[in-house]
């Protein structure tokens, strides 16, 4: 099987997000199952400007053939004005205005789309829905097209050009059921073949050091929050919740933030921020945590919750984040909070009961093993793509 991915950025320099997920799938299809994979992408690394930084042309990255194209235009200057204008009533915006928004969002990639038409792949996977290359490419390819929406409940989803793009997809690959429900609530595409695949967890690595040794917290117990330390990711809220919790429940407990640091948190002797750590340290820190906390309300999947479960650590997640709540609910591996009160009581309950932590952690670990281990996940994806190709053949 030959698979083509279309994604606005690609490469090991691009961290996380939809593009990172596309790269994981592409590399596992090659390395684990021996399929041929090519990627159509831009020369950009920065998702705010889409400036061409990398060289155009073909290269091979971890066994995946990458075709890079310059963009005719990046993020337009008037984008934010246009974006502000569509926010109040996006579904009422005309097709023409919607297309202007898509172009202004960038990157505009006519050369990429021309080349994509000549692809000899059996199936083309677009990842994610938001960009020009998906909107204008999905109806142009002659092969079956799989759309990985990576959709959030955001104004763009309601714009008319996306209605046409989703309608042209032959199949959908979702991160979570919550994402599927969102898409089906907004767009009439429920009958289209789909799979809720999620993302695979990376192999755990360790140097055998204790988490407390890496954090420098002595023998103090700790809870951990892995990911970008950013206000929008809920880090400031969590820090304040934790300080209040410690004021009301004095103890040795520490909150460790593990990840790149981009927002200022309130100072506290009970909070440690590691900044970026390598994979070994990250896994060792997670392994010794009492609870893994995901405070973000806007996750499309949240691998870090799964990484906690891999180590048998229970999760405590933001109750307004559909995907993380869904995974906690399906696995039985975590609790969720929707106010300071429920945060305090949930954390209290988890800290007070090693048995509850063990039960939730094991349920989470079992869930990850059955659903998100790479060998399981990539086989599911392979079977799904084969079905999509077969269905395409029978319909043509």
């Amino acid at each position: 099987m030959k698979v083509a991915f279309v994604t606005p950025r690609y490469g090991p320099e691009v961290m996380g997000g939809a593009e990172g997920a596309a790269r994981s799938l592409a590399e596992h299809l090659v390395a684990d199952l021996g399929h041929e994979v090519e990627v159509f992408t831009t020369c950009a690394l920065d998702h705010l400007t889409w400036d061409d930084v990398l060289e155009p042309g073909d290269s091979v990255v971890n066994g995946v053939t990458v075709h890079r194209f310059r963009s005719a235009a990046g993020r337009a200057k008037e984008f934010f004005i246009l974006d502000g204008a569509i926010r109040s009533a996006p579904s009422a915006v005309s097709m023409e205005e919607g297309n202007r928004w898509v172009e202004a969002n960038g990157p505009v990639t006519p050369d990429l789309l021309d080349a994509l038409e000549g692809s000899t792949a059996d199936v083309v996977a677009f990842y994610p829905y938001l960009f020009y290359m998906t909107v204008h490419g999905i109806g142009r390819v002659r092969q079956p097209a799989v759309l990985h929406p990576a959709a959030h409940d955001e104004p763009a989803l309601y714009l008319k050009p996306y209605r046409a793009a989703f309608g042209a997809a032959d199949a959908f690959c979702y991160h979570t059921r919550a994402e599927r429900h969102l898409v089906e609530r907004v767009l009439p595409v429920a009958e289209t073949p789909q799979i809720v695949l999620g993302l695979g967890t990376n192999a755990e690595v360790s140097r055998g050091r204790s988490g407390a040794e890496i954090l420098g917290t002595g023998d103090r117990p700790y809870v951990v929050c892995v990911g970008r330390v950013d206000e929008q990711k809920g880090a400031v809220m969590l820090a304040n919740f934790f300080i209040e919790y410690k004021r009301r429940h004095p103890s040795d407990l520490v909150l460790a933030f593990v990840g790149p640091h981009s927002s200022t948190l309130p100072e506290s002797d009970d909070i440690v921020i590691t900044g970026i750590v390598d994979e070994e340290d990250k896994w060792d820190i997670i392994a010794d945590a009492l609870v893994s906390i995901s405070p973000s309300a806007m996750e499309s999947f949240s691998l870090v919750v799964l990484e906690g479960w891999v180590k048998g650590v229970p999760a405590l997640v933001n109750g307004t984040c559909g995907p993380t709540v869904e995974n906690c609910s399906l696995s039985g591996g975590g609790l969720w909070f929707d106010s300071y009160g429920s945060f305090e009581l949930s954390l209290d309950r988890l800290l007070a009961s090693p048995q509850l932590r063990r039960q939730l952690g094991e349920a989470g670990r079992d869930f990850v093993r059955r659903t998100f281990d790479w060998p399981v996940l990539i086989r599911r994806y392979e079977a799904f793509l084969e079905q999509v190709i077969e269905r395409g053949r029978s319909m043509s």
Partner: protein
Amino acid sequence: MSDVSVDIEVVRAEIAEEVRRRRAGGAFDALRERELEQLFHQYAPLQGRDGALAETLRAVDVTAYIDPHVPVASSQPAGTAVKRGLRKASFWYMNWIAAQVTRSLSTVARSLHLIDDELTDIRKTLDGLTLSGSPVIALDGADGASAWWAKEARAMAARSTGRVLVSACADGWLVADLVASGGDAYGLDPRTGLIMEAEIAGLDLRDDDLLEHLDAVADDRLSGIVLNGTTEALLPAQRRRLLRRIERVLTTDAVVVLHAVHPDAVDGDDVPAELDLAGARPLRPTTWATLLAEMGFATTVAIGPTGADFLVTATRGRLSVAP
């Protein structure tokens, strides 16, 4: 599933109850809790659906108050003192503006609460006519590949030339059969636990409600629909909605297969409690045949060996011609 799994819903219910108890007992500092709520809602998605209206209104309440006390923290030396001075000098002005904005937003919030109260009253009144999901009615031994009606259902659905939807698909046995014989089928079943294994194994199964799902299907996109155990507990308004949706999503050449509990069996002890609790009465097979005939279908009716259930098959367009 782990053998040491714990019922998350029970734990969460206990926590919610304890939060309510403590809040009522004044265990939380209301002002501090309000500040923390504000932080919580700053980046939370605002949802107006699925019972989240109360959550949204809570966010409106939290954000309605405009604080005239401008923050004075600064990373510059003496910055805090300068900011504090400016705040003191302009406080009369900021306070005047903030008070008016807060008053205005509070009025808006209050009106939204009044509308919510009205809606809640209406919802209570209409509770018996709810148009949301209805339970699956599964008779013991009447589902699965070895059930008396399975062979005929499989044969009829296989005549479809396009995509077939199987409702209350359980572990996906009929979907798997149809796909294995070269068909294009998918399934729905709100009983998540039943579908998960087959879903992970690669079948297109979803834990969705039938009526809500049909709302999200584009017109003329399905060539067949199998209604298994999903019509008995429908209230009249829901049944009308189902028929309208079926008419809209099915192509001209289409198949409908309907398996349901017979109304004569409703008084027996073998009928699932869900049917009693739903307060609905299943239709007779001839009534379904009449309803489907009105949509242009040619129908056949078969009663199960015990008389407890029946099968209606219906075809229209080119599929009406016997193969």
